């Protein structure tokens, strides 16, 4: 523990660790020291001079953001001298700042506006004509208005330090000074838009939100991003049933304020004009719109008929639907349809990992653990492209704690910038390279190993054996692709394993076998697009698809149900670390239904008794029956991330490791869903490439 000092803050005696910054200590004591440039977690700038405070016996006002507290200090944060200085600072900031608050995006949630309201002068002594520069578009996502900019450097720092991109800088001098993008007149970056979020004024605005709404006209719904598997909380701002903004400024969720381009801008698929809004039935070879009643009756009758004659079913679940839906789907398949042929697109070998870790506790890393890990090893993943939050966490850990990092990848990755050692190895051959790191890795107090889809089956068992032999505490993180890829496995969307990785009573066909079986009678696909990469062998198969869009698979369907996306429904999802989080419905899209409701109605139509199909009831059943899912309800209910208890015992891991393959999505792709996001496909970086990072910063 560091030394504790006692000092006086606005007449109040305060104790704080020596060396803590005054601005942070004051915040903990409930006293706000206003600041524009100071941003928690990033380097100090002391550029805006808003945080000046009066410290007795110091000749001049001191910036609270860089002043460490010391024994016996007497500080005043609201003395007349301080208030007068703030007023002057604001007068300067407003010298050239346009007073276009009534149309500015930031109006109502602008820090400059708030500060002016509190400390600013009603009138300015500057009567000169304001210096003006016109607004610029840097990318489809980011616009910059130099006139509004107060040069706080927040955007520059989050881009450089937070993301390691460094696409923003500050150029020119004095009144002409402005933020400049990486490539002269445009940006080439991750397009994450964090710069827009942290901007205290309306200088940086976003392509999706600008001039669309007033901040107070929106409803804000905190839900989980549906794109990758990291499980970021994204707060959707909904106005008149339309999502127009997403961010996470309240820092709820495991990602704090971080979001990538998908979380912040990739929501627009929801309102894509090609969204399915009515059930479709194939008539004379054409898919035509039909009523829900007719579609449900058709499917129920067909399913009942196939079941009655002992026909072959194939059921393919989704990587994006909720745990409740996945659980209900496998229950429907196994109990209702009497088939064991249920699978999903597998993107990581979680069953083998759990089996290899059998008997160990605390061996699975959470997103939070990545920030506190003592050392980390990344194998076979371009994290900055594929798993942005994990990349961010590791980088933040390095920035704040100088965590040593090692990478073993098939090409250059951004993590190389700060890794202790970066090795290249072809997928599947990584273990040889990992072996050469043995001495380095064994030195660390503990180690977190993050690995992608190329480490599976025997290679994964070898990795765990390697970890065991290091003699240090090792945690693992098995990367998977989508928002609920992990949940799909946990809920038993596998032919060999039921919910909680219990061996299924009988094993059915896996995904490829279903597609290749020429005698398949019925195929039911929920939120997946398997026919994108593999044809369906059975020409006679009756295909039912629940989808958002008319994908390759939906085009082959006999009946298509229009499904609600993750942003339009409630339920829970499990991220790649096994943390359960709650979805909250934002907008509703007319004509669609959540997949759980579609399945429930189908069960009802077929006269099956599969239990009540509301989210809460199914989740209750999951908590009761699925191993590891007896998670703390208050944590989930209040929007937190509840880690599942890892299955502790042998798992009969499927031998078919070849079925495990990541889609290899970049920052700008997201399986078939990403194709329907205008923003993801319109940025110039799209579609992005893996392992392309330039080694030098």
């Amino acid at each position, binding site marked *: 523990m560091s030394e504790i000092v006692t000092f006086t803050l606005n007449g109040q005696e305060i104790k704080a660790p020596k060396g803590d910054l005054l601005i942070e200590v004051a915040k903990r004591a409930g006293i706000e020291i206003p600041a524009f440039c100071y941003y928690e977690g990033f380097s100090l700038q002391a550029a805006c001079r808003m945080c000046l405070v009066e410290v007795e016996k110091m000749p001049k006002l001191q910036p609270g953001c860089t002043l460490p507290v010391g024994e016996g200090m007497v500080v005043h944060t609201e003395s007349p001298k301080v208030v007068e200085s703030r007023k002057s600072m604001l007068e300067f900031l407003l010298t050239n700042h346009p007073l276009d608050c009534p149309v500015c995006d930031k109006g109502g949630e602008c820090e400059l506006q708030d500060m002016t309201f509190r400390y600013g002068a009603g009138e300015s002594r500057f009567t000169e004509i304001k210096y003006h520069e016109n607004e610029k578009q840097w990318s489809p996502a980011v616009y910059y208005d130099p006139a509004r900019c107060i040069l706080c450097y927040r955007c520059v720092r989050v881009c450089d330090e937070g993301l390691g991109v*460094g696409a923003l*800088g500050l*150029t020119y*001098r004095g009144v002409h000074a402005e933020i*400049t*993008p*990486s490539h002269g007149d445009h940006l080439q970056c991750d397009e994450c838009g964090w710069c827009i979020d942290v901007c205290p004024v309306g200088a940086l605005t976003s392509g999706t939100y600008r001039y669309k709404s007033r901040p107070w006209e929106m409803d804000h719904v905190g839900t989980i991003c549906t794109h990758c598997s990291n499980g970021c909380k994204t707060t959707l701002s909904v106005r008149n049933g339309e999502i127009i903004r997403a961010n996470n400024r309240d820092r709820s969720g495991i990602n704090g304020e971080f979001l990538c381009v998908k979380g912040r801008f990739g929501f627009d698929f929801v309102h894509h004009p090609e969204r399915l809004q009515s059930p479709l039935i194939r008539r004379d070879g054409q898919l035509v719109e039909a009523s829900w009643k007719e579609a449900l009756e058709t499917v129920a009758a067909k399913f009942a008929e196939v079941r009655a004659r002992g026909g072959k079913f194939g059921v393919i679940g989704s990587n994006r639907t909720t745990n409740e839906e996945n659980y209900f789907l496998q229950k429907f398949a196994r109990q209702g349809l009497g088939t064991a042929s249920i699978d999903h697109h597998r993107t990581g070998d979680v069953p083998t990992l759990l089996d290899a870790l059998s008997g160990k506790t605390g061996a699975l890393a959470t997103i939070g653990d990545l920030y506190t890990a003592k050392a980390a090893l990344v194998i076979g993943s371009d994290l900055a492209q594929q798993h942005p939050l994990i990349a961010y966490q590791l980088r933040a850990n390095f920035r704040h704690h100088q965590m040593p990092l090692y990478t073993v990848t098939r090409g250059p990755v951004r993590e190389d910038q700060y890794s202790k050692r970066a090795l290249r190895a072809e997928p599947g051959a990584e273990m040889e390279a990992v072996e050469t790191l043995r001495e380095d890795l064994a030195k660390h107090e503990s180690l977190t190993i993050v690995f992608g889809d190329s480490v599976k089956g025997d290679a994964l068992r070898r990795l765990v054996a390697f970890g065991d032999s290091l003699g240090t505490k090792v945690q693992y993180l098995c990367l998977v692709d989508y928002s609920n890829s992990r949940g799909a496995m946990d809920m038993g969307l596998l032919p060999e394993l039921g919910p909680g990785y219990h061996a299924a009573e009988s094993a059915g066909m896996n995904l490829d076998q279903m597609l290749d079986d020429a005698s398949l009678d019925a195929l039911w696909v929920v939120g997946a697009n398997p026919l994108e990469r593999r044809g369906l062998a059975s020409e006679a198969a009756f295909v039912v698809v629940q989808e958002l869009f008319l994908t390759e698979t939906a085009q082959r369907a006999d009946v298509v149900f229009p499904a609600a996306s993750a942003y339009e429904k409630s339920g829970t999802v499990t991220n790649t670390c096994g943390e359960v989080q709650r979805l909250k419905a934002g907008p509703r899209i007319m004509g669609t239904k959540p997949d759980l409701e579609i399945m429930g109605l189908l069960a009802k139509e077929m006269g099956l008794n599969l239990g009540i199909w509301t989210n809460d009831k199914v989740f209750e059943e999951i908590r009761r029956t699925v191993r590891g899912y007896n998670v703390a309800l208050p944590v989930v209910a209040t929007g937190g991330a509840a880690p599942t208890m890892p299955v502790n015992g042998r798992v009969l891991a499927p031998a078919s490791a070849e079925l495990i393959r990541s889609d290899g999505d970049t920052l700008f792709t997201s399986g078939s869903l990403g194709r329907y996001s205008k923003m993801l496909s319109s940025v110039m970086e799209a579609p992005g490439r893996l392992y392309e990072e330039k080694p030098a*910063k």
Partner: protein
Amino acid sequence: MTFSPELEARFEKMIGLYPPGRQKGALIPMLLYAQDETGRITDELIEEVSKRLSVNKVEVEEVLGYYTMLHREPRGRHHLQICTNVSCMLVGGEELWHHACHKLGIGNKQTTADGQFSLEEVECIGACSWAPAMIDNYDFHLRVTPESFDALIESLRQKQ
């Protein structure tokens, strides 16, 4: 991008002067010397310098925007900088500036059609004791009068 052997040797020496990890400090001198050789800061040069010093391109841009002695546009063979700051102004700096503009037929930050001369009005160049003062590339000219300015221009023209 390659530079003359002399400049390459100079860069090598210069970069070695900074402690490990702080090579970034060589950015400004490197740009200045490279500019002398290439005539201006080109995109290619930015790329090269950022690569050699492992800095982001945008960091190079920051420096370019800040310092007026680094320039993206080509200048005349003789870049004439005339001080009009207080000391010079009091003893005829302003008049000298206007005379120069008139004589060369160009204004601030412009270049003559033959590419020989460019003009720039600058702040204090640290030669107040010998005001009014001006700089031709790296050479100082002191106590300059309109007449001595004309003579200077003539002699510079003669030299070619």
